């Protein structure tokens, strides 16, 4: 494949209180094997050379593990490829000459720090309400000393694969954090280690989720489709069942 040129429409915003707008850029001679973030790096080098302010973006591991990167590309959180993070989007997925929109994860609960970088601390504050899990101290426990069926273990592991990137919030038309919070609650609700604080956990995490100003879940399921880990909305249902049990029983 030959190198390509693209037109970018990027959200620029100087600071949290400043008004932002979409700004057009062109990038030329881009290798199709370049990742989207590498393309953004090139653009930033260009901007620096020209003496302009580079575009602020978040990224860390760049191998789809950490959940730090997060852009809305062509109106989709983490781009159009499912079960990947922004860092795993490659320029070969775009047509030569295509206009690509790049926006931050939008939510009132994710205030924009600068350009495409948002503050996702609201998710950390939900996690911090999760209480404690019970683990015995000492050496490694005997295998199978605590019997957990394979099905249950798989469900808990599915939920625990959440990397907290916030794409679910970005993709939800209501900016609901139900999938994130559901995954965090579900991963412990399936396991005996999570039982000591089980009721307290769901009540407090759900309350914190509301306090942060996330919206209501309308069951659009858009979150499941953009989640880099493919976490299912059945974990939201699990959170709801846990919530009913904790508040009614």
């Amino acid at each position, binding site marked *: 494949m030959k190198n390509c040129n693209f037109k970018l429409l990027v959200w620029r915003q100087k600071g949290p209180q400043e008004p932002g707008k979409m700004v057009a850029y062109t990038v030329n001679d881009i290798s199709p094997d370049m990742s989207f973030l590498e393309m953004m790096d090139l653009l930033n080098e260009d901007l620096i050379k020209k003496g302009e302010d580079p575009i602020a973006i978040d990224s860390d591991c760049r191998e789809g593990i950490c959940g730090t990167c997060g852009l809305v590309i*062509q109106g*989709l959180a983490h781009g159009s490829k499912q079960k990947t993070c922004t860092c795993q989007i490659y320029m070969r997925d775009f047509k030569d000459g295509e206009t690509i929109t790049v926006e931050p994860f939008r939510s009132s609960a994710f205030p924009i720090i600068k350009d495409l970088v948002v503050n996702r601390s609201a998710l950390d504050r939900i996690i911090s309400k999760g209480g404690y899990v019970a683990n015995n101290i000492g050496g490694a426990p005997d295998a199978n000393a605590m019997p957990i069926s394979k099905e249950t273990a798989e469900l808990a592991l599915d939920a625990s694969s959440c990397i907290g990137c916030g794409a679910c919030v970005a993709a939800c038309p209501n900016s609901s954090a*139900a999938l994130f919070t559901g995954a965090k609650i579900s991963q412990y609700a399936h396991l005996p280690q999570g039982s000591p604080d089980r009721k307290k956990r769901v009540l*407090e995490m759900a309350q914190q989720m509301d306090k942060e100003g996330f919206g209501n*879940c*309308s069951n659009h399921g*858009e979150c499941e489709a953009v989640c880099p880990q493919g976490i299912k*909305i059945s974990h939201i*249902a699990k959170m*709801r069942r846990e919530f009913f049990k904790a508040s009614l029983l």
Partner: protein
Amino acid sequence: MSEKTSTWILWTTIGRKVLLALSGLALFFFLIFHLLGNFTLFVKDPGIFNQYAYTLERMGFILYVMEGLLILTFLVHILDAIFVTLENRKARSSSYYKEGNAGKPSRKSLSSKTMIYTGLLVFAFVVFHVKMFKYGAHYVAQNSNIRDLHRLVVECFKTDYIVISYCIAMILLGLHLRHAFFSAFQSLGIAHPKYTPYIEKLGILFAIAIAGGFLSIPVWIYFH
């Protein structure tokens, strides 16, 4: 161990959707009974439909209680939905320049995105509908002393604009039900890897059956 949080559980993001789901399911059951009753309009003898209407009317106090409960359910459903929508708009204060659709497994659709609009329009229709029939012209059937509601229904459904507006309203209702049925179960925490796909399909089937069923009555009368 667990100190209960002071929040009233129904007034949380999870609880509000429970209220919405339960009131919605109640309205769904009402729709089914309403449709089954209305199918008596397909019987050639108008006396059958009039008798059905009279039987309901004769229930007196019980009917008032049921009507009261129905109005209450409507109010809970609508006010809750309006509140939820306003809150959701606040949660997404700045909108995207470009908003895409992530595709399956997402259920986001025209139906799911327009719930508040289809809901409010259907409610506006309900007001218009109740005014038209319950508080419409009071004919008396010739060979009995009961109200000839059948005559009013036929007169109305021979009018172009009424039939057209009924058809539009029923399509909106179908659109509303398409997302509503599955969503209600999900809001109540009912999700199962094996049965949820069937619930989703059943929702589409119900949406078509109920909207189509109601729609068939004015259309059938119009062309007869």
